[in-house]
């Protein structure tokens, strides 16, 4: 039997401070490859993505791997590869995602003006300049359609959340699975569903409220699940205390559990609204886009923000595309405001100073 002590790997000495030399080596190894890649791109006339993929990435892997080998021995190499790949993929996808945000903000701002927000589309042709016409009617339409959806969905969704947490119902698992399944319902199928149920059968022509109906199955799972999660965070002792004092279940819920979970329920509603406010396909199959301002959700055409964007992209003229960008910015701001307020309301509140999290 070999009782020789195993040599301690170099990396297993975390108490050792990084020396100045090691740090310099790391800095050099991180900077040189990007310098070479930049030179290949700017001076060598290489394509940007090619120089990143075939110059920067291999060189970076090699350099950081070498530094790892020198500083930590053999085990430093896969470590270095992990760090480089994480940085590479993370940066790449962040650039793509920020490009989406940036192009909306940049192209949207050039279309944005007071009349773009307040006017409607009555005298606008696809090539009309941006001086007249706007998305006012579409904002109103979106607020009406999404508002009606919220009115229908919130009681249903919150009550479903209550069923999942407050009752001992037998089919809670089934309902949870079904909610997940509905959450994956393709939005265009939701639109087709309302179309086949209410329009083909002749109950109604294209109208705003049908759009609201189509959005209900898309919003319901979000509201129900987030409500469920927030109700679950209410300590069981609160409920038991209320019940122990003799309150019937409904009073215990309305006066103790619900107030305790208020911010979570509000968050659920806001996230649900943010989920459906940008849905396009269900509205295309159920509402009829109009150019004029309309408050009538029960019949006739009603323009909404997503269908407005969709129509103006489809037209394909330069001015119509810039109108679409402007509308996209307005829609993004709406989503952002909803999302921000959801975050603000559900932020962790504590009267005592937070426990310090142990750093990894």
């Amino acid at each position: 039997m070999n009782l020789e002590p195993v040599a301690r790997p170099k990396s297993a000495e975390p108490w050792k401070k990084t020396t100045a030399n090691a740090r310099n080596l790391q800095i050099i190894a991180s900077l040189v490859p990007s310098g070479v890649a930049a030179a290949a791109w700017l001076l060598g006339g290489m394509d940007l993505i090619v120089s990143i993929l075939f110059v920067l990435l291999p060189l970076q892997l090699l350099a950081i791997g070498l530094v790892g080998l020198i500083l930590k021995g053999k085990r430093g190499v896969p470590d270095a590869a992990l760090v480089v790949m994480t940085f590479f993929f993370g940066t790449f996808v962040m650039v793509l995602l920020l490009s989406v945000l940036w192009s909306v903000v940049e192209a949207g701002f050039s279309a944005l003006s007071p009349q773009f927000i307040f006017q409607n589309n009555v005298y606008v042709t696809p090539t009309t300049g941006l001086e007249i016409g706007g998305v006012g009617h579409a904002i109103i339409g979106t607020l009406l359609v999404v508002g009606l959806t919220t009115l229908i969905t919130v009681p249903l969704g919150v009550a479903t959340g209550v069923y999942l947490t407050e009752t001992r119902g037998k089919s809670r698992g089934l309902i949870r699975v079904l909610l997940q399944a509905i959450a994956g319902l393709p939005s265009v199928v939701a639109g087709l569903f309302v179309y086949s149920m209410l329009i083909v059968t002749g109950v109604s022509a294209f109208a705003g409220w049908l759009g609201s109906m189509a959005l209900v199955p898309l919003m319901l799972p979000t509201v129900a699940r987030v409500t469920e999660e927030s109700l679950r965070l209410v300590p069981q002792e609160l409920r038991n205390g209320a019940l122990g004092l003799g309150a019937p279940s409904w009073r215990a819920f309305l006066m103790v559990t619900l107030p305790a979970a208020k911010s979570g329920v509000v968050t659920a509603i806001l996230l649900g609204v943010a989920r459906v406010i940008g849905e396009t396909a269900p509205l295309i199959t159920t509402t009829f886009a109009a150019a004029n301002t309309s408050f009538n959700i029960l019949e006739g055409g009603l323009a909404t923000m997503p269908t407005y964007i969709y129509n103006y992209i489809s037209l394909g003229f330069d001015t119509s595309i810039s109108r679409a960008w402007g509308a996209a910015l307005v829609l993004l701001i709406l989503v952002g405001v909803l999302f921000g307020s959801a975050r603000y309301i559900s932020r962790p509140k504590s009267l005592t100073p937070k426990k310090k999290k142990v750093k990894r």
Partner: protein
Amino acid sequence: MAQTPTDAPERRTLRVKPTTIEDKLFFGISTAAAYSSVVLLILILVFLGIRALPTFEEQGIIEFVFGSGWVAIEEPPTFSIGPMLWGSVLVAFIGVGLAVPMAISLAYFIEFMAPKRLARAATLLVDLLAAIPSVIIGLWGLTVFSPVGAHWGQMLHNALGFIPIFDNTAENFLRTPFIAGFVVAVMIVPIIASVTREIFSRIDDDLIKASVALGANRESTFRKVILPVSASGIVGGVLLGLGRALGETVAIFFVLNLIYDDVNWFNILEPEGGAIASLILAKFGEASETEISALLAAGVVLFILTLFINTIASFIVAKAQPWNNR
């Protein structure tokens, strides 16, 4: 032996059912609301099914799902979604294939590498981006990304054109499955990344500390501890993203050229592709009654496909997050 006293009070039964009217109402309402989702799902399936039935009967289910061709003006019309079905799957898989490494890297970076302040900002950004409407992603894909993606596709073709996958005979690299896959990836990366980050953040800190204490480095901790612990959660998140990608309508519609009578098996740089949801959107505007029925049938197929994937996903996620199933 103890004698049971004869004057003992009668044994009481413990009642757990609601007794008062108000309580019955309270539990009744919540139960009814919960069952509304069952009703909703059944309604969706029934109505779509009834409307789609004529198409399934006329075309034959096998022929409708796997055949190719979409001709509405002939008598009798031909409706088959084979190319669309395969196209949906192809685009979704390209999207997921691109999105998974990026999303996991992003989540790992946010959770384990970034300084706290940056991590918080990035979390907020990722969660916000998960809520961006897909029509905006479509607009970005059409006007900003398509030229760039076409350029990348062309370079890929020039360098690797001898491999059949990267073959292109059209001299046009716009509106290809490659670009559509990228756009879908951008759409689902925030979704997968936010699920993965959530799973990572719930990993027991002691596990990671134990791993480090045993002398593991970053890489072996990731490979041997973090990944196995969170694997099923990540798979669930990926399947959710896959469901999103399969059901995506508008974004794909703008950046993909739909070809109805020929299946584009794997030539991802050819400007030919398909997607069921985009087919519905493309044909819905001026469809006759029989064609509407065929579109609804296509919707049924798509719904069943996504239902299948989402059910698997929810089961996996439920298994992976025991803290959610109290």
